[in-house]
């Protein structure tokens, strides 16, 4: 069945509040338009990085959509996340070409480097490690994508180095603040 991400934590930490005002323009734009469920959910995800249940409830109340329909759609598509994710999402391609070129080794190396399993987020909420079906860069297999950057013809070692570089930059920018 369609991928269900592992739910290791409740949807939202009690301490975190959802700023519902972010949703006002979104609801204005899509209210009463046909086929609006997916764009609304995409909008919620853009605002928070994932889809908090209170946000879905608020949108349901203010658009007349059924909460159960929204949840059904949100849990169907791989794109929608029902729990918070890291700031940086590391997508490792597991398409056919990448599989043949040993994408498993890339995921294993990253699991080691990040200290999390596939589908999980690091404790500091910086990285989320994910497997994806196909990024369409098959001739450069194995491939991973971080943000809009694609890294091709990887080895486990190179994948680890990419993560270390990003971590260094993250730490660097942290000092400036």
């Amino acid at each position, binding site marked *: 069945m369609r991928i269900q991400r592992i739910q290791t934590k409740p949807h939202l930490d009690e301490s975190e509040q959802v700023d519902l005002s972010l949703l006002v323009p979104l609801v204005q734009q899509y209210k009463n338009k046909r*086929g609006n469920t997916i764009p609304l959910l995409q909008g919620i995800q853009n605002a928070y990085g994932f889809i908090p249940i209170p946000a879905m409830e608020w949108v349901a109340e203010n658009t007349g959509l059924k909460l159960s329909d929204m949840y059904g759609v949100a849990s169907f598509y*791989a*794109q929608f996340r029902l729990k918070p994710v890291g700031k940086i999402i590391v997508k490792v391609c597991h398409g*056919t*070409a990448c599989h043949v070129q040993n994408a498993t080794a890339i995921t294993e190396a990253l699991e080691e480097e990040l200290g999390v399993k596939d589908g999980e987020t690091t404790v500091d909420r910086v990285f989320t490690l994910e497997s994806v079906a*196909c990024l369409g*860069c098959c001739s450069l297999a194995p491939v991973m994508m971080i943000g809009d950057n*694609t890294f*091709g013809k990887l080895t486990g070692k190179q994948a680890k180095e990419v993560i270390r570089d990003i971590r260094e930059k993250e730490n660097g920018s942290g000092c400036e603040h």
Partner: protein
Amino acid sequence: MANKQVIVGLGSCGLAAGAGKVFDAIESIKKEKNLDFDLKKTSCIGMCFREPLVEVIDETGSYIYGEITDVKAAEILEKHILQNSPIKEYVVKTEVFDTKDKGFFEGQIKIALRNCGYIDPESIEEYEARKGYNALKKIASEKITSEVIIQNVLDSGIRGRGGGGFPTGLKWRFAFNNKASVKYIICNADEGDPGAFMDRSVLEGDPHSVLEGMTIGAYAIQASEGWIYCRAEYPLAIKRLNIAIDQARAKGYLGNNIMGIDGFNFDIHIKEGAGAFVCGEETALMASIEGERGMPRKRPPFPAESGLWKNPTNINNVETFANIPWIIINGPSEYSKYGTEKSKGTKVFALTGKIKNGGLVEVPMGITIRDVVFKLGGGIIDDKKFKAVQLGGPSGGCIPEYLADTVVDYDSVNATGAIMGSGGMVVMDETTCMVDMARFFLDFTKKESCGKCTFCRIGTQRMLEILTRITEGNGLETDLDTLIELSNQIKNSSLCGLGQTAPNPVLTTIKYFRDEYEAHIRDKKCPAKNCKPLLKFEIIEDKCTGCMLCKKVCPVNAISGERKLAHLIDQALCTKCGMCMSKCKFVAISKS
């Protein structure tokens, strides 16, 4: 004298290989040294294995340089631009002299990919300069009727390039015959087959050809609105489509009374997919546009009768639409002269896997698989033994080496048990385990099954469990029969193409590689030395120098031994990670 041109390939594959850096380097050198040439961008020419690519055009012709770094780019600017002497050893394609990659282009006929790698995809003027929108202009100026266009498409013999292989002209006729007042046209750009990327390449490299094809389709079936349903995983394609749609609206190729044709109003919207393979199925795709879970619906009624929001709808694939303007300009007979009796024209294939020249090729239907792999593809990496090609993605099957003289057309490929699919061709060598491949695809379809039909939902799960246990050395004698029985039940009782074809990878590998399954089940051996639980790593005493390197890298401390004495692997502890083997400098570790 015209200016020299320097053109950098900035498709997704080029960017992944570092073309962005190369472009920046060239731009800064140009500024710094005040060089006189035009710096341009294009997309992928299909030669992914030589990315990043930089083309230099001077008065003597075009030279495409491959595997360019910022250092090499600086060299090229110095020698070729300033001193007029091309650097021969970096050139991968030119008409001026022979290159070692010449074979990659021989035998290719570019129709769908006619502009990819030749134009800046973000410039409508460059598309127009290569006969872009001429088909639409021709329709307007010669007052060609819908019926004639449909007849042209029918005569060209083009069949749906998304995998189904249904004659496009017929599909259009069904939609045309429905006289409802509101009709829609949809472009299926939800290219989900792992191992296929031709649609991405067309959308990124020549988005206007798809828009023009859709507009012609809309005119033919009299639709007023169009959607492009594009995977969210293709951000660059979506960006370029948006640019192209704005440009086309501004120039009047989209909008009201297009090209002065009274009453021909048509506009196109982009719908971003949300990540579900099953949405490539046309009824699931429409459910997704309507904002619902992407679950297939029963057919009939077919989309031409009752599609999007219950209105008559016509759906074609990206590659199909990209061919349409060419057919209208050049005529159907020009198209149908390529191909075989029942499969006309050309087809784009994505060559990947254990192949030297991985990339996109467009070849006439009827070429043999062997020619694609060896003549265009350059053969197998490290000249290992060619074992099979996987055609058609998770719905397709594996064609073994001894059937490599099969010609590629819809019917010949179907006869092997595989399908043409969207044209992903994954090449496998002797180190690829066919049982593991079957397991890989089942894992994919199991995850992507929408859950509507019981046999697809639970059957794929059961099949995956059986395949997994075979690859772990726990297979049972009865497993192959169970797999075949389950396969047939899933095929017979699933509503949509996903379920009906999900067992194909398993059935074809059992058909052609039964001995490999039996080796896993009976002898607990993986002939391709791929399935980890069945492997045994051993140190060859005579060759081991006792350097202790393997001992150090072993993550589970399974290796023992003193300096300068032969080491030993404790099989009970060994996790078969293979680290020792990859580190050993003396080839003293064997895998069996």
